[in-house]
């Protein structure tokens, strides 16, 4: 998708390196670097500000309903989610609220006193005491710095990996030294199953190293392609203007959004809340930091122009049914093998005048009717220099 800007992201090399190294170490079961990275992760300083850790914690519990509110209503988190999610949730997330609350200190108290959210569905029964407001604000202050918690898949693969590793060790010890179990088949079976599992995990990890299929991050604005493309019938190229003439398809700039949203101030799903973010960004002159979904590594050069213009590729061939997605998800693994496979099968437009100068042999074959089409790899489409330089 969007061609990354190489220069700005030297650091990504290291990320890739780090990742590769980390995985490598994981695969070789060397634990200590993991500890290193964990240490560096934990090293981040909490911005305490005016709230104490305790207040933040209490606020968090209130918000999540672990401690009941005095006025009786249950919790906030059932509507305002606190973890990133796979399915779209049109309600404002806790993080959104936290950011707003950081900008406007009276935001939350306004909400509770009812003035701000009069008429907003679901807030009828909400009322907080001053102390509670303060605690929730404390939680918000923490949340605004840290963002939403990552939605983690359970069970933890790594844990199972080590668990089965341990089992394997036990089985081996049993087989060689202890010999307590009379039926030899049991430890042997355990050993084989665990070994098989390990091989599977290792090969899967190795294959998916650096791939991010099914990556679907939550974006700062709940921009739904389904709403815009399917319901409103907006063409992809209306926003992704670079597709035809640049390597990058381009993420639309804010003023492009405003072309419509100057008028359309309220959405069908999220009301004004999400659309307001665009206006806020325009006012504050801060661009929106979208999360990049389709990301190719720095050493891969890909041009949308060639693929869309010359190759006549439909967006969906690489990006999937975006018009069906609320949250955009990477549907292909974007691996080199995937590219190569397509290049081996896809036919080029051999009538393009560019090909008229050289490629005599192919032209001849074509004339003689030996072949009726030329694939990309026949004109050098699987050479390294096509994508790596």
């Amino acid at each position: 998708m969007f061609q990354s800007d190489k220069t700005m992201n030297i650091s990504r090399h290291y990320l890739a390196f780090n990742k590769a190294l980390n995985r490598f170490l994981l695969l070789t079961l060397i634990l200590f670097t993991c500890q290193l990275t964990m240490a560096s992760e934990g090293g981040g300083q909490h911005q305490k500000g005016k709230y104490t850790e305790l207040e933040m914690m209490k606020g968090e519990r209130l918000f999540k309903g672990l401690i009941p509110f005095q006025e009786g209503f249950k919790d906030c988190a059932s509507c305002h989610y606190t973890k990133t999610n796979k399915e779209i949730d049109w309600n404002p997330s806790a993080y959104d609220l936290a950011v707003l609350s950081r900008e406007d200190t009276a935001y939350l108290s306004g909400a509770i006193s009812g003035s701000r959210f009069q008429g907003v569905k679901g807030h009828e029964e909400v009322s907080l005491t001053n102390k509670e407001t303060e605690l929730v604000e404390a939680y918000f202050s923490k949340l605004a710095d840290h963002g939403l918690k990552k939605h983690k898949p359970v069970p933890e693969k790594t844990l199972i990996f080590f668990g089965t590793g341990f089992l394997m060790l036990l089985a081996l010890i049993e087989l060689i030294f202890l010999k307590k179990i009379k039926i030899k088949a049991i430890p042997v079976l355990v050993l084989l199953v665990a070994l098989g599992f390990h091989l599977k995990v290792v090969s899967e990890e190795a294959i998916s190293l650096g791939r991010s299929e099914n990556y679907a991050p939550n974006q700062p604005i709940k921009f739904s392609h389904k709403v815009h493309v399917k319901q409103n019938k907006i063409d992809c190229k209306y926003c992704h203007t670079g597709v035809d003439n640049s390597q990058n398809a381009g993420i639309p700039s804010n003023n492009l959004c405003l072309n419509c949203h100057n008028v359309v101030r309220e959405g069908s799903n999220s009301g004004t809340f999400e659309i307001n973010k665009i206006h806020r960004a325009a006012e504050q002159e801060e661009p929106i930091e979208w999360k990049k979904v389709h990301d190719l590594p720095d050493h891969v050069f890909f041009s949308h122009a060639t693929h869309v213009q010359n190759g006549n590729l439909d967006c969906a061939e690489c990006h999937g049914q975006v018009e069906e997605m609320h949250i955009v998800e990477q549907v292909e693994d974007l691996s080199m093998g995937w590219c190569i496979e397509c290049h081996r099968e896809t036919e080029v437009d051999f009538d393009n005048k560019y090909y008229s100068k050289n490629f005599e042999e192919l032209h001849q074959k074509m004339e003689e009717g030996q072949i009726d089409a030329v694939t990309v790899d026949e004109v050098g489409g699987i050479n390294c220099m096509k994508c790596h330089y």
Partner: protein
Amino acid sequence: MSHKYWTSIEEKNNGVENLDKFQDEIPHNTSVQQLIQDDLSNKTTSRRNFLKWCGFTFASTAITTSCESPVKKAIPYLNKPEEVTPGKASFYATSFFDGEEYASVLVKTREGRPIKIEPNDLSTVTKGGSSARIQASVLSLYDRDNRYHHPLKEGKKISWEKMDEEVKQTLKNASSDGKEIALVTPNIISPSTRKLLSEFNEKYPTVNWIQYDPVSVSAMLDANKTSFGKRIIPSYHFDNARVIAGINADFLGTWLLPVDYTDQYIRNRKLEEGETNMSRHIQIESMMTLTGTNADQRMRIKPSEEGAVLVALYNELAMKAGQTSMQQNVQSPVDITQLADELYSNRKQALVVCGTNDYHHQLIVNAINQMLGSYGKTIDINTPINIRQAEDKSMPELMKRMGKGEVSATVFYDVDPLYDYPDADKLKEALKNTDVSVTLTTQANDTSKETLYVGAVNHYLESWGDAEPVKGKYSLAQPAIRRLYDTRQLEEVLLSWMEEDITFYDYLKNHWENTYFPEQNEYSSFRDFWSHTLQDGVFEPKYENRPRPSYSEKGLASSIQKAAKEQPSEELELILYEKVGIGNGKHANNPWLQELPDPVTKATWDNYVCLPPAYAKKHGIETEDVVEVNGVKIPALVQPGMADNVMAIAVGYGKHNTGKAASDVGVNAYPFINYNGGYKQYTRKGLTLSKTEEKYTLALTQSHHRMEGREIVRETNLETFVKDPESIKQKKHDTTLYKEREFEGHHWALVVDLNACTGCGACAIACQSENNVPVVGKEEVVKKRIMHWIRIDRYYKEDENSPEVVHQPVMCQHCDNAPCENVCPVAATTHSNEGLNQMSYNRCIGTKYCINNCPYKVRRFNWYKYAGNDKYGFNSAGEQGQMELNPDVTVRSRGVVEKCSFCVQRIQEKKEQAKLENRQLEDGEVTPACAQACPANALIFGDLNDPNSRVSQLLKSNRNYHLLEELHTKPSVSYMTKVRNMGAKIEA
């Protein structure tokens, strides 16, 4: 012959060098974000607003969690400027002028960031050529440790408004008191600025504007005034000359307009198809200059012998011309009879140039050229060039007045006299007598540290302007990026001090509308004229011939008398010279230039005293011995081709606290300059030299200087070339066991014309800029780990005291039977269907086997993490440095091999463009950065599958040969045999 000298310098290994901490290897994840969130982000949106130029970029959030995918943020333009398409380059024409060297250039920008300087083909001054310094100038925009970000007063931040107010008051007071306001600038070639300066003078009548050149040609200006009544430098036309005599003039390297002169000089030396004529160049010089290395014949004289040579030459020619000779008793130390013969028989096609800043010598040269009928033919006195206009006398006079307290305010703009004025210490003292001193400068320097105010000035890529380097040839300058910092350009400062309520942009436009718009009749509206000129960058109206000023022999007799009196002595003489890379030292903090090997000595990162081999042997001095020259400690470098008892030191080094690249590199040689007769003398007698016991490691990129009888640079003379052209053809060994591979689409090839290559090094810097080649620093160069993808080998032939020199650019030869490809175990380097030797960095595991197996030794290894590392990444470290990187070329990580790619990104770009436009690819459309930058067009790139392409034609030439052909590597790069014109009369 000193065996030691010729084999190798002693490679000193400093043992374990100080390594960066491991931390340096950990990426600064938030760099881009921080940059965006810096104070830069709060600017209003404008055409090339910074944040929006960063535009479409991705910032990696700090993630170090072990197995999570890194989150990349895509930041779109807030308001997308219409002319910027993310992912596509835009070009802006502008003018480069640093006070010394001029070029009309195109600035390549990506997402609003200038990333490369490319020559402007439309200019007739630079003719699509460039030099190392011009190519490197883009990096100084992002100079991260030596640019002023805002104005200063006494070293503290001050606002422009405050500074304006205070300075204006001073100026007003001085004007009313009738005290002098000294304005010291470099040579200004901008007509608009000159106009503005005169208006400034009107506003403040006591302003005394002084142009100052650290390395000047003042005497030449004065000599021309005597001879022609005009204080000018004429235009030279080396392309019209059949015989060129250069006398201590490095016109291909540093003298006046080297880019232009290289193009002219090469024009009739190229020997393209069917041509049998080439000019003959005889260089008489004291040290080994770039020009000298290219001469057909070279004679060595001491600086003190130059007078005698000129007088003798004059007399010889006068005799032939039947004029009276003077001071006949003067004997030339070198035999100039043949030279005189050749010059005289080529009257009106001969040219004599002299680079010495000596009034009398220049006057004799004028007389010689007059006798040869050069004026109007090879010298155009009607179209003077406007560079190096400074008068040497003005600075000492100013200093005198300062000392007397007559100067109230001094404004230094873009000059650093406290570093490069010979009597810098005295000037510093005198400066204390002025009330207010201001420095307006882009980069911190010695002068800016001593003045009360410092005004932070724009980089030229951030400024509007125009230029008139040669009379009647104008070019415009426009910003390619919005100001990075709170800076202003000189003209804006002046306008604000003049209390004029007009931007310089409007001022410039008005000036052009009033002055130049009427000079043309192509465009009827100024709007059209302006936008087209801005797009082209140049405006060169046609002038009808003007009457030539008449020559007068005034002062010649006494000059000849004076020159004849000069007594050649046996004592050691010193020459101060500019290096091709560093020049006068203004760009010293540009790491690219510091690491550019000197074309002659092949030394980087230092200056040194060049000594002739005979002298060195006699006194037991070897390269890297530290010697004392008048008490100044400096390493010695034994340089073949120096005149006997002559030593040479480059100026422009020895700066302190002026950025990481420049600081404490070399020795400042400016204090050696003497004044004589009001002229700065770049030669000196009466110095002592003594050897010390110390040693100093020099970073030389080449330590063996002979070809060992191998056919590396093939050479012939013009006579053989014309009479027996078949004889110079290389014998081919074309037997093979395997069927040769064929290339279906394109088959890219590069031809290097050794007759054209002067060895200037512009290609190396262009390549570095285009391909994100890192700077590695002195220590690594010493270890022979320079990263340049194209290197220029220089070999000496024959006698070490007076050798012949050849230059040979060597880059990856893209062999069709590449030895490197066979040995890579992981298929990281393979051959493409277009004949390219491909290098996939991300596949490379760094076994270095390919490096070993490359017979041309053109592969480079990333020994450390060079890019973005504070220790090595002079250019690519830090946020600013990353802005310069070319987004179309991968930044290589530690442990991978890299090499010349034939600028594959450019090939791909042009191919894509052709496909999109549904057309064939034209010959010459694809040009690698090196070929594009070359001022001599010595590198020709094209498709061998196209029988009509220039490379295909050149490949058929008898001169064409492959390097190390006998290895049957079948390189795609081929060379054209060098031909020397030995002066023999050739009957066609």
